[in-house]
Every structure is written in C-alpha cells, then in structure tokens.
C-alpha cells in the first residue's frame, strides 16, 4: 500500500472530530468530573530535599471533623521487589511506589509523605497541617559534579553502580554507566586535520503541560475501583496502580479523560494509587488534583545534563572520530534517559571511530520523567553545537558538512544495527533548498541549523471497527488522543474502507470496553494503533466481500472492493449492481449479523525520523534578550496522515524546544528547594514570543506501515536547542555552551567578551 500515492484522504487536513467539544468547553478534562458524595484528596509533601522520616503522627488529623481518611507509607503494601516501569526514564516499580508515597526517606522537596481525604479542600489543608512528621534532615545533593564526587552524601546506601566491568560493593550516587564504542578513536583523531571540543550543561526542564495532573477514584465496598484521570496511558496506569496497591487488575477500571498536554509527563503515575487507597478507606469518591506548584516540585521533569564532546574531521569535512562524555540527572531514583542520549548523540552521522560514556546520577531532585524524545535533545545539542563549530573551522556550509557525513540506508547506527530506509539526506537537501535558508538576515541577526532524531517505536495496540446499520463506521481504540489521533484513525479507516471521512467516528475506550493498548507516547499511536485500525478495516472488507458474494450467489473471490463498494469482478456478471458499505450493513441481519472486526498486534518496524531546523534570531546586546525572527522545521514524517496535525507537531516541538533553549530551567536554592515553581518565574514561551513556525514535511515512507507512517511527535523537540545556540553563535560571535540562553547568561557572555 505504501507504494501508491494515489490516496483520497491520507495527507489531507479535515476538521478534527473532537474539535467542537474542545472549543465550546464541553470536553471533559481530568479535573472536570464530579461525582455525588465526592470528597477531596490532598498530599502532604516533604519540606526538605533530603531527610530521614523518623515518625509520622496522623492522629490529630484523623480526629478532625470532615476528615475521612489519612494515609502514609505504612498503609501501602511493601514496594514491589521486581518489575520495571519501562521507558527511558522508567526505573523500577518499587521505586515508583516510593515516589508515589515516601517510606523511610524523603528524597526531594515536595516528595509525598502523607495524604488525606476530607469533605472540603479547606478541611483537607487543615488536616495536612495537623499531621506531625519528625524528620532527620540530611545534606542534599544537588548537582552532578557533587553527586559524582567521591565521598558525596548518598541518596541510597544500596545503590551500586550498574554495568561496571567488575561488580562493586561500594555504594554510589552513580546508578548506571553505559559505554558505546566503535573503531579506534585515537587513530581517528590522529587522522583529523581539525578537532573541536566543547562542554555543555543544561538544567532540568519541565514538559510544561497546561493541564495539571488530576483524577477521581470511586471504590465500592467490594474493593473495586473506577478511576477517571488525565493520562497518556490508562492501561499502563491501571497496571501500575494494581502493582503498587497489590490489587487485581480486574478490580480496577481506568477511564481516560481528555488531556491538556502530556509530552511524556503523563505516562507516570502519581495521584491515582493515592486516590484509590483514600477512596477505599473513605468509602466515597475521592478527587485529587495537583496545583501548578506541585506539578513542578513533585512530578518528573527531564534530566539536567553535563556533556563533553570532541569531534575530529579532515579538511574536506569527513568526520574521523568523535567522543562524548555525558552525565544525566536521574533525580531521586534510578531511571533516566541517559541511554537514549548516548545512543542518539552521534546518530545522524556515518562514524567509523567513536566512544560514548554515559552516567546516570542520583540527586535530591524529583525523579525525572519522559519528555518528548527523552535524552536526545540534551546530547544532540552538544554534538550539533560542535558540528557548527567544526563547519566554521573548516569554512564549510553547516548543511554541506552534515550532508557529507549523513547516515543513510545501510549506515550502521551508533547503537548497532544498520539503518533501514531513512530520510536524513532528504531533510538536509530540503533545508538547503528552502528559501528561509538563503533569505537575507537583518543586520546583526544570526542563523543556525541543527539535526534532530528519534527512534520511534511500536508496542501493543488494539482496535475494533463496528459498521453501523447505515454504513457509518465506529472505530474503538485505547489511546488517549493528545495530538489529533482520533482524526488520524478516522482518515486511515476511511481511506482503507473507501468511505467518506465524515462517516467514521473514533472513540477512546476505557480499560474494560476495549483491548489493551500501550501509552500514547513514543510517537507510536498513528504508527501502531493506526496499523491495528487498518488491519481491522481490511477484515471488514473481507467480510463485506463475503456478504456480497452470498447476496449475489457468486464465489467470494469473484467480488472486488473498490471505492467503498463491493463490485463483481470483470466479466462475472456485469448486471449486478454494486453494493456499498451502507447496502451491506442494511442487510447484515440476512447475511450473518452485524459487521464487526478487531485487530490486536505488537507493532514492529517503527521508522526512525530525522529533522533539520533553521533558526533566525536577533540578540539585544544591551539586555541579552533574544528575539526569534524566523524558525523553520523540516522533518521526515514517512507519510503525513493528517497534514495539519503533522505540521502542528513540528510547530509545537519547535516552540517547546525554543523555550528550553531560551529560558526554561529549574532553579534551586542551596537547600534543594525549587525557587521558580510557577509559570511566572518558569518562563515558557507564549504566542507573542514566537514567530510563525514554518514547516516542511519530507515524506520518505516507512515500508513497515501500510501508509508509510514513521511517527512525528518527538523528533521536533530535538533540533531547536542546538539550532538556537548556533544562531546565537552566528549573531554575536560567541559560543555560549550552556542553556538556557536567558538574558543574564547572554549578557554575561557579552560582558566577558568585552562587548
């Protein structure tokens, strides 16, 4: 199917089916639902970044009128000893249980130590204040260098560095090391005519989704609980909640609300087990929602990082060797995107000689979570900045330097296997040919380019297709719609069946009403769930051909399905009138009953996606403020199913990446308390900060998907960091290695240079 480009609907931009409810306020988000007799849950959080919990006395709180339940770590089963959450920033389920509710130690400011359920939020707040916690305050560990230094205070006396050549019995804050290498780097650097080096630091940054975490749990007397929550992964949330509370999965029903952004951050469970447990004790529905401050302090941002890069090249630009050293903050518990950072740092290039050393480090900060292309923006910022420096040293066009070394089909990726068909060179050529790359810059402005990448992946998906009695189509699947996936499913179903887009509706089923699907994350939904939808539609077509055959009294193989109709094969019986999907559905009772199909699969063969970004910006030399003049996002989508949504992903990723590059950072004081836990001080870009993001979709179809989909959600956030840094270098002639490029940092660099 991917060979054909004669699609009627794939690649168009029809109106989203969920749009009216969202713009009129009817759509139900996480905190919108209220149930009769509901009470309110709130969390008591540690005021210290590192402390031993010696005693918790909840008796005063529990005795307060209007308080229905109080829980601490003692109310939970022991944290599971086995099992992983999965993903780049996953870690163990046992540690996640300790994130949800601290047990013997509080490991970051904001760590949950108790929770209450009360008749009103005011009473809940008063109950929290009545809980007495005795802490033994410990010295916090707050930066990578300090955490890795010998003799650093330990977060976990039982943390022994994983993957060392020889097992160690000495505890450390370094949870894991990883080494990737190929060839001989010493020899490679000897062959180089030019060598560039750089050291780059990026602080923690948050996904910044607009909707805070929220849920409501209603548990009955039999211990069965229904949970409404905003999540990217209601099936995964059900599984984690069951494991943390030692419950039967079958006793938990999770219903995903509409979701106001996730970007990876809503793949992690925080509130739901608390709400279930409180509801179980209170015998009432318990509603919980985080404040923005709680979202910043107590949910998982992405890692702060420290990367060192060295790259060598011949005079003609051929890369000869590269090394990378990188340390990633994991936060309070093991599990970080360091591995993905290590695998992606050199991924755009055909490199014979390289070595990557990665370190995952525990600190007294929130346990990191997934954030769009986890780990890649930080490591590729370092390498793409070095490539820019290299192009300057070689006096080469930065896109030409990248084209000369670009990976293509058959190139061995740094993480081992050879690339299947990929579109990096196509993206680089598109950038080179784009008018924005050659447009004259205003005086004093700068232009930077960079490459981005994400693997994309598959996992499990299910889909069901029901044909209604008038031939309209209902698709039911299990992935919360974050970025327009309902519309994409409708397009793929309509294209496959040959029916109008408007005749298809896609519903997101709860955990009891549809088959299992993994998270809406990893750029997998349009790829993997889309594949399940297409398969289910193909089964409907097979059923329709069989129904037409019995209707006409001919063999099934004499029936074709063309443009949404069953027609007799050429020469069979030209007098037979074609049967539309509506015709077949109308007579379904006579030909075998309702038309219904389903498909479930573990999707393989996700297509890697590359991007190239071009940033134009101007630096105010008096204030250090940066104005983005133009930004161009070019990306290989494989094939865009809903064109405007793909463009939206590219624009959204660019906006988030620009925010990360320019202003966003967790600022901690010496006690480990985040000082900017609100949107006034954690400065994300708003519409007035950004120009229109120009997009250009490259389409190198993924042969493993029926319509060529690669997945587009994550790659867009990777390149903006380095593209912005390189544009600043171009504008002011100074390489600022660290992010964010906030006015104080830019001004300090200008001052240091005597500007």
């Amino acid at each position: 199917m991917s060979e054909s480009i004669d699609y009627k609907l794939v690649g168009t931009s029809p109106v989203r089916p969920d749009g009216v409810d969202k713009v009129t306020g009817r759509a139900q988000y996480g905190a919108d639902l209220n149930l009769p007799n509901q009470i309110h849950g709130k969390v008591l959080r540690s005021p210290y970044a590192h402390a031993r919990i010696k005693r918790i006395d909840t008796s005063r709180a529990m005795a307060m009128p209007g308080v229905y339940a109080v829980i601490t770590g003692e109310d939970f089963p022991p944290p599971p000893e086995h099992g992983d959450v999965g993903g780049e920033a996953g870690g163990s389920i046992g540690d996640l249980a300790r994130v949800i509710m601290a047990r013997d130690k509080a490991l970051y400011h904001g760590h949950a130590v108790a929770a209450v359920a009360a008749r009103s939020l005011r009473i809940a707040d008063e109950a929290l204040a009545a809980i007495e916690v005795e802490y033994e305050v410990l010295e916090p560990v707050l930066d990578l260098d300090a955490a890795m230094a010998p003799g650093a205070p330990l977060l976990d006396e039982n943390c022994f560095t994983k993957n060392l050549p020889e097992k160690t019995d000495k505890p450390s804050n370094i949870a894991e090391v990883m080494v990737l290498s190929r060839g001989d780097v010493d020899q490679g650097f000897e062959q180089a005519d030019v060598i560039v080096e750089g050291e780059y630091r990026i602080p923690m940054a948050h996904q910044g989704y607009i909707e805070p975490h929220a849920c409501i749990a209603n548990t009955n007397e039999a211990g069965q609980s229904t949970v409404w929550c905003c999540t990217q992964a209601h099936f995964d949330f059900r599984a984690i909640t069951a494991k943390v509370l030692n419950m039967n999965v079958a006793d938990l029903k999770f219903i995903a609300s509409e979701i106001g952004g996730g970007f990876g951050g809503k793949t992690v469970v925080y509130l739901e087990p608390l709400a279930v447990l409180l509801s179980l004790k209170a015998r009432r529905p318990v509603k919980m929602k985080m404040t923005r401050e709680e979202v910043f302090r107590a949910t998982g941002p992405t890692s702060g990082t420290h990367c060192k890069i060295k790259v060598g090249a011949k005079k003609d630009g051929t890369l000869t060797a590269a090394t990378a050293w990188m340390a990633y903050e994991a936060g309070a518990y093991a599990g970080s995107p360091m591995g993905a950072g290590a695998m992606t740092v050199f991924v755009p290039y055909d490199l014979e000689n390289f070595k990557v050393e990665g370190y995952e480090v525990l600190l007294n900060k929130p346990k990191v979570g997934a954030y769009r292309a986890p780990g890649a923006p930080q490591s590729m910022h370092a390498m793409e900045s070095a490539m820019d420096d290299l192009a300057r040293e070689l006096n080469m066009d930065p896109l030409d330097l990248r084209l000369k070394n670009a990976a293509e089909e058959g190139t061995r990726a740094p993480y081992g296997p050879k690339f299947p068909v990929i579109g990096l060179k196509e993206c680089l050529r598109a950038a080179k040919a784009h008018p924005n790359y050659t447009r004259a810059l205003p005086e004093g402005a700068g232009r930077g380019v960079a490459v981005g990448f994400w693997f994309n992946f598959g996992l499990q998906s299910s889909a069901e297709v029901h044909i209604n009695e008038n031939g309209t189509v209902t698709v039911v699947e299990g992935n919360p719609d974050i970025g327009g996936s309902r519309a994409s499913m409708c397009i793929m179903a309509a294209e496959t069946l040959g029916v109008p887009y408007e005749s298809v509706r896609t519903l997101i089923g709860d955990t009891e009403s549809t088959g299992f699907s993994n998270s809406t994350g990893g750029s997998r939904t349009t790829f993997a769930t889309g594949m399940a939808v297409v398969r289910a539609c193909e089964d409907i077509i097979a059923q329709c051909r069989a129904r037409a055959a019995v209707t006409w009294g001919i063999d099934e193989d004499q029936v074709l399905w063309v443009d949404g109709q069953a027609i007799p094969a050429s020469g069979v019986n030209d007098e037979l009138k074609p049967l539309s999907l509506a015709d077949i559905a109308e007579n379904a009772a006579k030909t075998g009953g309702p038309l219904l199909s389903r498909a479930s699969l573990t999707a393989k063969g996700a297509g890697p996606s590359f991007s190239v970004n071009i940033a134009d910006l101007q630096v105010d030399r008096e204030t250090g403020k940066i104005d983005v003049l133009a930004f161009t996002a070019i990306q290989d989508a494989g094939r865009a199913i809903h064109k405007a949504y793909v463009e939206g992903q590219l624009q959204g990723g660019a906006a988030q990446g620009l925010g990360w590059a320019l202003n966003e950072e967790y600022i901690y004081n010496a006690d480990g308390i985040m000082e900017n836990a609100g949107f006034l001080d954690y400065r994300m870009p708003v519409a007035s900060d950004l120009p229109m993001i120009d997009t250009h979709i490259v389409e190198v179809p993924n042969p493993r998907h029926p319509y060529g989909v690669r997945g587009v959600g994550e790659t867009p956030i990777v390149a903006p960091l380095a593209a912005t840094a390189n544009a600043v270098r171009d504008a002011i002639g100074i390489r600022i290695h660290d992010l964010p490029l906030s006015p104080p940092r830019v001004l300090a660099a200008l001052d240091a240079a005597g500007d």
Partner: protein
Amino acid sequence: MAHVVFPGHLLAVTDGEAELDVPACNVRELLAALEQRFPDAGDELRKSTIAIDGLICQDAFLETLRPDSEVFFMPRIAGG
C-alpha cells in the same frame, strides 16, 4: 547461526563477551540459548529492545532469524 552483538552495558552479564554466533531459528530459541550460556543475563536480555537485521522490536520473541541474521541488544526504547 545468528550473529549476536551486545552493547557495552551488557558485558557485565555476558562475561565480557561482546559478540558471538548462536544457532537459533527465532528469538525464543536465541534467548533460551543465551540464558543457558549467561545465567545472570536473563532479565537484562528479556527487557532489552532487539534489532534484527535493522528491524527494531520492543518485545521480540517469535521473530524468525535467518542463518546470517544480525541481532543487536539495545537499551529499551520508549519515548514520551
């Protein structure tokens, strides 16, 4: 014989062996053979992402291996 390559972070559980050839017709047989050879490696191998001749699979088990297949074990990939 599938040619198997382990990344650096798995060498601690594969007795330092980075590459080896394993007679196996599918991933199930491959994992069984590797677990027999490296008893400490089972958990790490089973939760790894596996690339078979360039095709990345998150939960590989039934995939067929050709006699000259190239198999890479990688840290599990997910995303946000």
